[in-house]
């Protein structure tokens, strides 16, 4: 595997639910191993379940893989298996290169010791020699922005400082493969952007990265490939956008989920939404500066229904970007149509959601109906890489 950094073949991991079983099976497995016998790993005993089952993927050098999924889907377990903390119960993992991992920042820190002492201890735990740490020490401290607290015990650190120092040590041990669990969430915005910049820099140096995160924007902008885990199984693999769509669709936390649940009893339904270009052709892909019309067809079951129409653009994960409300209207029973003229879509290249709905007012206390479609925005000549923003704006350069 010359260019492959990580190869996971059908890896599975089982856990048991009750503490009694943990002890019983632990004793069984350990005593079998003591006598040089393999422990029975490939079948379930009573009370055991597969926390991760049959997960396979391959990652080339320099690629970034995102792992997403609801809580308890097995994301961290996969990461721990990749890191060698847990041995897979079935399957096989091959890794080539030095592995660095940030499963939980500060796990190796001793609260009584100073930041300086902990840099050496944590560095050693991650496999760095004293020489290496000496050489990188200033860089580590600078990146972490610990300042005067360097010689204070780390138990006096804020949680942000903890994460900064831990992250800084981990990235400075120059791993070929970096495994990152949801740790960036703790830092402030400034450190977050610093970390993402550092991770970007690492990928250009051929570092392979596996990222577990609930931050869909991070996943969308950083990852080449994404695995969506659900109940320990891969429910989808592919590009970040498709997986994020799938994930947000499967989760009932979606925007307007309650309005969609009450569809049968709603006083009004949105029958369909289309985007048309200026020639009237229905399109799914628009240019950032393009003028379009959104056509909403509705069917009201009630006379004199008072409320406002709205459209909302959102990211694949459902994060709202902009919303526009109509003036208050009274709708009569029957089908109708409403047209929204959008002078420019003003988003950068990518895939988005467009919601259209009807609500009792601009504060959306009651949303009577809401439906969505997906649309794509094509590349804009002045910003080809959408990593650095969401919105497109018409600007004039004078140089």
């Amino acid at each position, binding site marked *: 595997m010359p260019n492959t950094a990580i190869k996971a073949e059908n890896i599975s991991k089982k*856990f048991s639910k009750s503490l009694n079983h*943990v*002890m019983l099976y*632990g*004793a069984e*497995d*350990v005593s079998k*191993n*003591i006598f*040089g*016998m*393999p*422990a029975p*790993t*490939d079948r379930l005993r009573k009370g055991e379940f597969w926390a991760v089952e049959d997960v396979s993927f391959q990652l080339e050098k320099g690629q970034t893989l995102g792992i997403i999924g609801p809580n308890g889907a097995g994301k961290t377990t996969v990461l*721990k*298996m990749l*890191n*060698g*903390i*847990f*041995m*897979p*119960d*079935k*399957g*096989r*993992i*091959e*890794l*080539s*290169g*030095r*592995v660095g*991992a940030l*499963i*939980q920042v500060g*796990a*190796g820190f*001793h609260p*009584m*010791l100073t930041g300086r*002492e902990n840099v*050496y*201890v944590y560095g*050693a*735990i*991650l*496999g760095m*020699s*004293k020489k290496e740490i000496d050489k990188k020490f200033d860089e580590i401290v600078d990146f972490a922005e610990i300042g005067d607290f360097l010689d204070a015990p780390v138990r006096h650190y804020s949680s942000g400082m903890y994460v900064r120092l831990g992250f800084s040590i981990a990235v400075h041990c120059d791993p*070929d493969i970096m495994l990152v669990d949801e740790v960036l969430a703790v830092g402030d915005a400034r450190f977050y952007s610093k970390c993402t910049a550092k991770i970007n820099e690492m990928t250009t140096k051929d570092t392979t990265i596996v990222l577990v995160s609930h931050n869909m924007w991070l996943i969308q902008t950083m990852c080449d490939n994404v695995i969506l885990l659900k109940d320990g199984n891969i429910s989808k693999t592919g590009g970040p956008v498709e997986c994020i769509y799938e994930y947000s669709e499967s989760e009932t936390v979606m925007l307007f989920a309650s309005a969609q649940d009450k569809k049968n009893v709603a006083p009004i339904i949105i029958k369909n939404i289309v985007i048309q270009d200026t020639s009237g052709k229905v399109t799914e892909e628009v240019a950032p500066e393009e003028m379009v019309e959104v056509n909403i067809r509705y069917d009201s079951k009630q006379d004199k229904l008072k409320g406002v129409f709205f459209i909302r653009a959102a990211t694949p994960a459902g994060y709202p970007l902009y919303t526009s409300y109509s003036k208050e209207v009274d709708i009569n029973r029957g089908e109708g149509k409403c047209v929204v003229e959008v002078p420019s879509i003003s988003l950068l290249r990518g895939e988005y959601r467009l919601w259209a709905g009807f609500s009792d007012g601009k504060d959306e206390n009651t949303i009577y109906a809401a439906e969505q479609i997906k649309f794509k925005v094509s590349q804009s000549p002045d910003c080809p890489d959408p990593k650095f923003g969401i919105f497109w704006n018409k600007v004039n350069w004078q140089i």
Partner: protein
Amino acid sequence: MDYIVYEPNKNVKLGLKIWPAMFRELVGSRELIWRLFVRNWSAKYKQAVLGYLWAIIMPFIAIGTFVFLNRVGVLNIGETGAPYPLFALIGLTVWQLFATGLNSGCQSLVASGGMISKINFPIEVLVIASLAQAIFEFLVKFILIVIFFIVFKFIPAWTIVLFPLAIIPIVLLTLGLSLFFSLVNGVLRDTANAVSVITTFLMFLTPVLYPLKDKANLFFKFNPLAPLVVAPRDLIIYGHIKEPVSFLMASTLSILIFFICWRIFYLAKTKIPERL
């Protein structure tokens, strides 16, 4: 470029190749052991006013008790070959190397459970680092022994230079048992308590604070710890080992136990992180 494979029962599948793997990992972790030792050591004494003195206070209390019992005649300790407090201190110093080493080693994995389940590193270093702590305290107490030499105007036999060598078997035994019981403690938390009770009890069955009166003493015959504690002390006080054969046998047994337990630890350690 490193190439790593993880699969079920990885270490069990190694067969005899496990030995080079074990040695390689141990040699590769020297630095980490040192770091963890320094960490434990500085953390332990950082918020204590008396600091290192605690390493000395405990034996003082134990010896004091026995000196008192001896004086009031409850206990008749008999001929010790050296002033009794000195005799008792040497015995206790060697014994506590074993007892504190084993007790802290036994708990070392569970105490660092958070770390083990979140970072991948050779976990045997935790056991070794806690033994290193016991060895450090042993050295501190040895300074106390030297002070006792001066106070009691006792001139040790020249064989005191062999003392460090005579300590090696008990260190290996402690490490071996620590590795084994720390592993068992990972699955069954009662282990640490049991070990703690048993070591306290064992001290009285081992000639630590009293000399051996009868060579055919039952405890001495069947307690491998006895010669391991007595022989180093003999070297200081008498200039020769009184029971060389039993010391040799106990030493061989200790080395054997160490290697067996180390191998057991290596075979089963991949099961530990998920149990913590």
